[in-house]
């Protein structure tokens, strides 16, 4: 699904990612953990194609295709979805209108017809039920005045509607209370299949109790310094990140 090889990236000439290798297969959930400033959010932004980041070396493949030169919207059309840590507000644009635009622009890019309104309504009904989303919510301006929990739930709702191949959840647990966290995690679990993959980026182990990863990677100083199974996350929770720093000899 996703294959990253020796990825180096910098922002404003400061190198943040210093050689990342990552293989994610269909059906898998990978967690990327690490202390603040280790490059977690940079990694998700670089995969999504944010312009500020310059890839200085290395390659990113999605389903075997090199996507390194593609713009963010083109990557989205290929099936990459990123749940934002801080979703932006777009006043006056309703959740429904935004989704309609996103879905139809993606279909257009794939050479498909616009989705008929009837189908779209049906899909909205199904997915909002799946994620326990109040329909009133859909007529509100995108993220404007949303609580932290609503913003994150809205991200997952968009993910459900866009049906991505690869979903990157960037610090989806930040700012969520335990109930909101459970709802969001349940949503993600319901959307998992053998054909898609999820990369969970998180600082804490908490979210991984609900979205159980197949693999856990520790990112430190722009590199993956340790990989393991879900037990590694528990170990990190217990001991903190300092022992890793010692282990890699910093």
């Amino acid at each position: 699904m996703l294959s990253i090889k020796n990825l180096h990236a910098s922002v404003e000439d400061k190198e943040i990612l210093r050689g990342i290798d990552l293989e994610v297969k269909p059906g898998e959930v990978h967690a990327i953990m690490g202390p603040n400033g280790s490059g977690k959010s940079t990694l998700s932004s670089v995969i999504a194609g944010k312009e500020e980041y310059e890839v200085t070396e290395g390659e990113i493949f999605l389903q075997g295709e090199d996507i390194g030169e593609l713009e963010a919207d083109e990557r989205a059309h290929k099936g990459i979805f990123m749940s934002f840590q801080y979703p932006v507000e777009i006043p006056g644009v309703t959740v429904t209108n935004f989704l309609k635009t996103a879905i139809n622009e993606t279909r257009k890019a794939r050479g498909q017809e616009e989705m008929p309104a009837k189908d779209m309504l049906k899909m909205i009904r199904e997915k909002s039920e799946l994620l326990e989303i109040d329909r009133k919510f859909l007529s509100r301006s995108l993220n404007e005045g949303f609580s932290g929990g609503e913003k994150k739930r809205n991200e997952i709702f968009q993910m459900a509607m866009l049906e991505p191949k690869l979903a990157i959840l960037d610090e989806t647990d930040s700012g969520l209370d335990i109930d909101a966290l459970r709802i969001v995690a349940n949503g993600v679990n319901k959307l998992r299949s053998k054909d898609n993959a999820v990369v969970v980026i998180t600082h804490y182990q908490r979210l991984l109790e609900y979205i159980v990863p197949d693999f856990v990677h520790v990112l430190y100083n722009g590199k993956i310094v340790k990989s393991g199974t879900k037990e590694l996350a528990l170990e990190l929770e217990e001991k903190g990140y300092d022992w890793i720093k010692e282990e890699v000899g910093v």
Partner: protein
Amino acid sequence: MSKYTEEDLEKDLATKEYEYGFYTDIESETFPIGLNEDIVRAISKKKEEPEWMTEWRLEAFKVWKEMEEPDWANVHYEKPDFQSIAYYSAPVAVDPNKTLDDVDPELLAMYKKLGISVDEQKKMNNIAMDIVVDSVSVATTFKKTLAEKGIIFMSISEAIKEHPELVKKHLGTVVPQKDNFYAALNSAVFSDGSFCYIPKGVRCPMELSTYFRINQAGTGQFERTLVIADEGSYVSYLEGCTAPSRDENQLHAAVVELIALDDAEIKYSTVQNWYPGNAEGKGGVFNFVTKRGLCEKNAKISWTQVETGSAVTWKYPSCILKGDNSVGEFYSIAVTNNFQQADTGTKMIHLGKNTKSTIISKGISAGQSQNSYRGLVQINSRAENARNFSQCDSLLMGNKCGAHTFPYIEAKNKTAQIEHEATTSKIGEDQIFYCNQRGIDTEKAIALIVNGFSKEVLNKLPMEFAVEAQKLLEISLEGSVG
């Protein structure tokens, strides 16, 4: 992976082109350039006007000669030389008794280019239309249907001849000849425009529409619109404008007067898309317009405007809330790009008791443009319990444009309630990236954000117009594919 910066955004935004910039080769009769009493007389004579009208024009001309062009607005441009403009230009072969079939086929071809097929429009949208090219009204549709209800909708030249009592009684009562420099000029030389009268208690069954087009080079266009809604009547009026792309600036100085008698309601919507000049700021229309409405008891006037064109805009559609319980509204979207400058807003003059006004202004600036909101809310001493709510929002794109807000509030009655809110925001790279990540390209993302920003005002437009306006906003800010 290329970096999409503010500068790229600016560059992309700068590439839009004006799609109405064609010139139609129709035979025109144009007066010699320059302005003096003889020209004023000649215009009046040409239009076979009665003596009182000629005198009215001459009076205005005398006042105008003594006046100076105002320079308090936040716009900078080379003042036009009023002696190097032709004050009358008309497509020849316009017979005042014409029907649509008599219209010059070149003209009809031009309407088609503008996206208005007169025939289609009137059938499909149920809109009665008056089309003014250069200075003369060339086609008024649907006259018969309207006449059955007693509604008069015709060019103002015809109205002067056919309904002199109505014109004489109301012309200049809301915008007097000496009101301001451009209004005085217009009063002296206006060549045509639309006239509309809705009788007592009649609800106009369709949208009335005027389409203005400047075609000839070196001419000014000076329309005069007069709308009278008699007691308890209702009318919705639309106005659209385009002009060819020319290197030199063209002058447009119109006057619109609205009169809403007791319990009447007038909705006046404008989509202004005069040629804005090219990307270097050369050419474009100078749009110096005076629009004002008078509300008698329980009357209501709503101005809705979508301003995307013109090199320089100077325009303040206003309401004089004379009658008790009258209501004034102003909803505006003003877009400036490249080197455009707009100084626009409204005046709400509260004279009667329990008068209410609402102002919603949305300014969008891109390129190196300057966009100013200027508004006056005046509560006079007799206006007990007057209320006003104003909201001015500005949206900036890039780092080289400017948004300015000049609200003036004068309250002479203690019972007044006045609220003013203002916000300034910027289309951020984060917003664009968010949209991109969802599969929406940058150009579409900007359109989406701008439409969201303008929604409160777009919602006020009649349905067909709203769609057109939305498209126009997109075109005005087009070219943003990174």
